[in-house]
């Protein structure tokens, strides 16, 4: 079983309703491979944040673009890769929001990426052959060897 590559890949168009299709497909993959519910939900949140971000800000034309998503399950790690051909943007270089402000002072700007950075165990960004490539790793709790 250790030799099996457990991979899930999906190509999305740059439309917000594609996020729902991605999350439904990811949930089916998570069920199939018994991914713990907390890690699965963290994946749902980061997909919502990052794909929304790409669709809303990466493209300066009205053309259709392809966003590639790949999820690989290795032993105790869930490795997520998201790539797009939009303007170069490193989502992990943004300033974190001030989360200590009162209700009246609070806004939502920057909160999505702040969630991604904190809900994942490793995050990285590369610009590769004209594409933004974001890689995220979530460690899964050890299930114990039988």
């Amino acid at each position, binding site marked *: 079983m250790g030799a099996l590559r457990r991979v899930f890949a999906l190509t999305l168009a740059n439309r*917000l*309703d594609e*996020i*729902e299709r991605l*999350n439904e497909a990811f949930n089916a993959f998570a069920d199939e491979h018994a991914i713990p*519910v*907390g890690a699965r*939900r*963290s994946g*749902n*949140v980061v997909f*919502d*944040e990052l794909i*929304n971000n790409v669709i809303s800000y990466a493209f300066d034309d009205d053309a259709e673009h392809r966003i590639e998503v790949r999820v690989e399950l290795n032993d105790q790690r869930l490795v997520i890769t998201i790539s797009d051909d939009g303007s170069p943007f490193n989502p992990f270089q943004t300033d974190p929001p001030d*989360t*200590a*402000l*009162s*209700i*009246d002072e*609070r806004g*939502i700007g920057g*909160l*999505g990426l*702040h*969630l991604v950075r*904190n*809900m994942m165990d490793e995050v990285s960004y590369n610009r590769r052959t004209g594409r933004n490539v974001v890689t995220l790793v979530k460690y899964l709790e050890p299930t114990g060897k039988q």
Partner: protein
Amino acid sequence: MNVTTQEIDSVTVVRIEGNLDTNTSPEAQEHFDGLLEKGASKILVDCEKVDYVSSAGLRVLLATVKRLTAAGGSLRISSLNETVREVFEISGFSTILAVFATEAEALKGF
């Protein structure tokens, strides 16, 4: 996402089933706006059947609590699963919203 609303004494209990994310937030916002326009002043959002909340969902809750408190009302929230609680903690929402373990606890003294 499904939303059901029930009046319990003077509290409007809003039970959300599904996710609060990019695709469901516009509908959730409309729902809360409708309650505010009808003059609801105590709103309890029960999340027992909420799977996850992203920043789009937080935006809806923040906008609602801002309008509600400006009008002299208040909002409570209950029954967060572990991931939603984590989202609340990372974003600082657990300090700006009144969070309760269960709907029954949230209703006490509201």
